[in-house]
């Protein structure tokens, strides 16, 4: 395996992770299940491509435009559907995702069902890593703030959250819009990595994959989402030796892990990244001090 191949897998994992991070806020922390996030990815992908190709914007600006486009779409969808309870919201998002795909199938401006070739291939490994780190930092800060507690309160007891005065609708809307913006960025990155877009890439199965990744990593855990995205995107590649049985083994692996660990890999816990860094740093500093002391003697 050469570095180019591994890098390709890591970039795809990173793109998936971007979408999964957003969904982690919506599903893992706020408790709303969505089966339409591929729709937001599609909007982000096409708006970003429109930005770079048709409007001639720099990639970063186009990505922001894509994120904004997806968030705006989620705002309108949210206004209509967020008052629906649990399963009904889930089904509404499913319908939304498919509708977006079918609309894009018929918009000739974006190439319709045949797809949109020759996009600039601006996405690279560094950009994906940097954007994911930014994405994780923003999400972690949000979750650990006062607001983060409210998302979790809504997930645990929606009615009780209402009775203590949390504006449940607004928090759900915030979670939905942030998750859509993340998905939009992921879509923009995807189109400019592959250099090609087609509505077919954003089928229902893509939404399912994202939700499975969040559950697999553990609901309510950011580090779980990271590990989940890395494992589930690279697993089909690692299983290439199984040839035609590859996806069967993949499915079996997911089923096995869910049976043995129904709470997901991390089960709501986080890897204490901050503490680990602090420890490493203090050890480093301690070592340095000793070295300096030793020098004096």
């Amino acid at each position, binding site marked *: 395996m050469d570095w180019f191949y591994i890098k390709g897998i890591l970039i795809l994992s990173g793109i998936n992770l971007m979408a999964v991070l957003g969904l982690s806020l919506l599903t893992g922390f706020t408790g709303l299940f969505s089966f339409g996030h591929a729709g937001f990815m599609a909007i982000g992908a096409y708006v970003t491509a429109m930005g770079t190709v048709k409007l001639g914007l720099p990639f970063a600006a186009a990505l922001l435009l894509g994120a904004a486009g997806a968030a705006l779409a989620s705002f309108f969808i949210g206004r209509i559907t967020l008052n629906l309870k649990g399963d009904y919201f889930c089904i509404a998002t499913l319908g939304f995702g498919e509708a977006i795909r079918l609309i894009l199938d018929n918009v000739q401006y974006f190439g319709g069902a045949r797809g949109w070739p020759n996009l600039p291939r601006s996405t690279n490994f560094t950009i994906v890593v940097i954007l994911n780190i930014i994405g994780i930092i923003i999400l972690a800060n949000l979750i650990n703030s006062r607001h983060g507690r*409210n998302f979790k*309160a809504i997930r645990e*007891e929606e*009615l*009780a959250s209402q*009775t203590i005065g949390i*504006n449940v609708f607004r928090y759900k809307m915030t979670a939905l819009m942030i998750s859509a913006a993340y998905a939009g960025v992921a879509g923009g990155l995807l189109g400019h990595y592959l250099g090609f877009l087609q509505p077919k890439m954003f089928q229902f199965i893509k939404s399912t994959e994202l939700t499975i990744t969040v559950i697999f990593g553990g609901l309510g855990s950011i580090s779980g989402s990271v590990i989940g995205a890395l494992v589930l995107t690279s697993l089909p590649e690692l299983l290439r030796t199984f040839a035609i049985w590859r996806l069967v083994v993949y499915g079996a692996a997911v089923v096995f892990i869910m049976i043995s660990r129904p709470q997901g890999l991390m089960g709501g816990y986080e890897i204490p990244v901050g503490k680990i860094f602090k420890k490493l740093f203090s050890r480093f500093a301690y070592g340095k001090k000793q070295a300096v002391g030793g020098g004096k003697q």
Partner: protein
Amino acid sequence: MLRVENLNVFYGGIHALKGVSIDVQEGQIVSIIGSNGAGKSTLLNTISGIVKPKEGRIEYRGKELPRVPHRVVKAGISQVPEGRLVFANLTVKENLMMGAYLRRDKKGIERDLRSVFRLFPRLEERINQMAGTLSGGEQQMLAMGRGLMSSPDLILLDEPSLGLAPLLVKTIFEIIEDIKRMNKTILLVEQNAYKALSVADKAYVLEQGRITREGSARDLLRDKTIQEAYLGKVQ
């Protein structure tokens, strides 16, 4: 203090509240009794903004009450929902602090926390315990404490005795009277009609979405038809 006029609520095609009007005076305990499915919880949920009425007016301190839950809490009304609904994965203290969610005055929150602990010493003993590990009675106390933490003037209590042992029911009702003594007004919804009538100043009987009787709690407690229907006394 609270005036509900001609309230009509529908769940799809079901007419759950049919022109309900009630009046709650400041400083009183007002009980609403009735059997399962009479619309008691619906009435409370409509006042707190969780359920939207099709028709009717809810006035609080002379002004129309907002129809969104968080604004109702801000106006000074706090609901203790049926079945307690405590945050199981938070500690007792965290649950109580969640109740003070809309408040910014640290000193006031601290003072109310102390008065909640005075009211429910059991909660202070278990301050760092996860709410999910409390007994049913303790969870009810926690839900009531959480409701008090928003410093409401009017408290809506939904079935506080649900599923509790008789001795605990007695304790809970004693505490309800203590809360009244803290200058709070209480609107109480209960199936345990005898207890609800004994602590109340005024009471309403709700039957299939309609108020069929109202009057002072003492009169209703002595009323023959009420005794037969709700208190299980055969004449």
